[in-house]
């Protein structure tokens, strides 16, 4: 089950606030 990482961080933060859900933010250099 691959993780569906999103790249629109501003939208993620706004959604987290609305849904009262935590965010996992990955700063990565791994091959994509």
């Amino acid at each position, binding site marked *: *089950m691959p993780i569906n990482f999103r790249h629109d*961080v501003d939208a993620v933060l706004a959604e987290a606030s609305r849904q009262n859900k935590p965010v*996992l*933010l*990955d700063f990565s250099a791994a091959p*994509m």
Partner: protein
Amino acid sequence: MWPDPRVSKFVQDNFIPARVHVKDDAQKFVEYGDKYGAQWTPTVLQLDPKGEERARIEGFLPTDDFLAQLMLGRAHLAFGMGQWDDAERRFREVVEKFPNSDAAPEALYWAGVAPYKKTHDPASLGATAKAFKERYQGTPWAKKASIWG
């Protein structure tokens, strides 16, 4: 770390996952790197729903250690939000599932603090000090708990 099904399930169950890539999202990487003080990869942050950082993992870890740290961070997140019962359950889960991880002594410590924060009954602190006499001796967390009993 990420492809492991235990890690991916934990992330999907507990977070909205987001990624900024040093090359593919270069501008965002700088922007959010400055905002959150992330200057190395991999850096994994756990943010509460208000966007405040509650836990951080810097550098590569083997999968079990990474998952233990993720679970520890999620427990700290609950603690930071005043969800004492959930925090205690999550801290104890780290100790139970990954008793030999670096995360376990810290989790045992905070598993004692969470119920105290809820009830102000010091019994959980005493029980934690006693537990540290049986395991994790020599860790900083055992030293910190030693004042409780």
